[in-house]
């Protein structure tokens, strides 16, 4: 193989500093001998502080203790490629990484150290998490003391086989809790199956839960497994359990008590090896008193009860969640928004979030559509949040002209302005403008039509 050398006037360091992957080298004593700019950005440690230190003290990753790819690489002289792990930034943030190691040899071919390259896999990790919906306790982000205490008892609860009842308003993250319980449990390698008990009428819900045998009714041509069977060995999450019709409550009670169920049209009971996690936003105790929910089922479900407070009762979580959703949306939408303005913070702190965390997530997602710059301003918020709010500084090149003379904000005006500016930047290319704004081409077209009809 022909060796290609850099021209003499180009220092190798400047090439290594220009790549997006983190790269560092070590000598045989594990002392860092080179640390490129990207490595500094990903780890949060400046290169000049890293050089000369032991690699594990700087890199601080999950592979450092016992799973270091560099160790076998230096021993065998062979490169190790595409290992995965995470590193911990100085601010306590976990960064998923992919890494590869190769030995470094002197001109005589003797191994004199190693080089490790790594890249930040946060965007891929977030996409995967969104697709797989696999969440852990650490994905529940909170600074609220009550929530932190709840999270502390979650791992032992998850490890037990007890039924868990999650209580909280809509949008507080009951399913996230349920998934975290499953991920932390001994059943984590088996399915997590969610059923919304309020989404289907009683008879459909019954066949959805328990399945049916061929011939059970006119259209039942072959056996259909129910969710209980699909969750075998894993966790069955019964969302909106308070909406479950009473006749079905009896059948679920039987599964909880006797660990058996009968599919529709079945002639013998089938064993159910399922851990139940149920959730509701309704007041089950009042429903029991009114005779709307079976008391025996309530007691069966209420073994471990977790109350998830609404977002308005934990305002300290608002900044944390905003940052989290901004990071998430940056990964999903390929944008680089850094923060929200002070005015937006104030508006969000004043808001009582009837839709809880889900509402906040939607607000950030909405703002991402309208904000082409690095800062989310009031004009990028949904209209219902700021009827009398003064507009603050414009976002990037798109903002500015949408506020009316009295200082209030004309949302449509801002949207149109954003579209027009994006069109200008993209030389009239509607598809490119839509892509930049993260909206559909049809939305761009509609905005322009409205503009023309004015």
């Amino acid at each position, binding site marked *: 193989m022909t060796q290609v050398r850099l021209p003499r006037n180009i220092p190798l360091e400047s090439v290594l500093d220009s790549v997006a992957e983190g790269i560092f080298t070590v000598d045989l004593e594990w002392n860092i001998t080179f640390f490129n700019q990207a490595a500094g950005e990903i780890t949060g440690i400046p290169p000049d502080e890293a050089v000369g230190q032991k690699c594990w003290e700087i890199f601080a990753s999950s592979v*450092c*203790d016992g799973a270091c790819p560099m160790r076998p690489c230096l021993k065998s002289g062979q490169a190790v490629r595409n290992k995965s792990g995470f590193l911990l930034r100085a*601010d306590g943030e976990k960064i998923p990484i992919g890494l590869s190691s190769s030995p470094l040899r002197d001109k005589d071919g003797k191994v004199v150290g190693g080089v490790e390259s790594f890249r930040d896999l946060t965007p891929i990790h977030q996409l995967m998490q969104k697709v797989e919906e696999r969440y852990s306790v650490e994905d529940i982000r909170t600074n609220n003391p009550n929530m932190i205490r709840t*999270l502390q008892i979650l791992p032992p609860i998850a490890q037990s086989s007890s039924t868990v009842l999650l209580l909280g308003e809509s949008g507080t993250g009951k399913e996230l809790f349920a998934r975290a319980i499953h991920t932390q449990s001994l059943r984590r390698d088996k399915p997590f199956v969610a059923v919304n008990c309020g989404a289907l009428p009683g008879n459909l819900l019954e066949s959805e839960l328990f399945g049916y045998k061929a011939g059970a009714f006119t259209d039942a041509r072959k056996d259909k497994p129910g969710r209980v069977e699909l969750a075998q060995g894993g966790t069955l999450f019964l969302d909106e359990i308070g909406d479950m019709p009473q006749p079905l409550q009896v059948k679920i009670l039987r599964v909880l008590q006797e660990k058996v169920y009968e599919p529709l049209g079945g002639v013998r009971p089938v064993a159910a090896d399922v851990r139940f996690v149920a959730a509701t936003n309704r007041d089950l105790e009042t429903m029991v008193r009114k005779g709307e929910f079976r008391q025996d089922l309530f007691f069966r479900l209420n073994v471990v009860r977790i109350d998830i407070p609404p977002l308005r009762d934990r305002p300290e979580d608002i900044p944390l969640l905003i940052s989290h959703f901004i990071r998430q949306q940056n990964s999903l939408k390929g944008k680089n928004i850094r923060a929200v303005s002070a005015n937006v913070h104030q508006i969000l702190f004043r808001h009582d979030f009837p839709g809880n965390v889900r509402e906040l997530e939607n607000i950030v997602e909405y703002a991402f559509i309208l904000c082409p710059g690095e800062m989310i301003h009031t004009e990028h918020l949904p209209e219902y949040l700021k009827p009398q709010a003064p507009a603050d500084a414009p976002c990037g090149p798109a903002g500015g002209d949408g506020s009316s003379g009295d200082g209030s904000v004309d949302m449509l005006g801002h949207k149109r302005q954003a579209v027009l500016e994006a069109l200008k930047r993209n030389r009239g290319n509607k598809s490119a403008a839509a892509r930049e704004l993260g909206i559909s081409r049809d939305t761009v077209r509609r905005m322009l039509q409205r503009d023309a009809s004015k």
Partner: protein
Amino acid sequence: MDICIAGYQNRVATLLETATELRLYTLEDGRVVRSGMTALPTAGAASLPAYLKTMGVDIVICGGLSTAVRNGFEAMGIRIIPWVKGPIEAVLAAYLEDRLDQMIMPGRSARTTR
């Protein structure tokens, strides 16, 4: 007072989650009067605050730890000294002599995550 050092082999583990042993020391009048060792609970680092609370631990000395786990320790009333490096015996001696700040990993602060 009981302290715990999260270790890997004979040094402080790089991360709390990758620790393979928890060294426990009971201190009286600035001296170690009892010591022992236990493994990390199977439920992982997230369950560690509650686990160590039941063991009566007051202070945890460790390498890096995530904000979520750190919050857990604080909720349990356990003081945490993170980003510590070095051989376990040297770290223990430094703690007893009140010079643990000399054993913090480069670029970090023992108070970084809070």
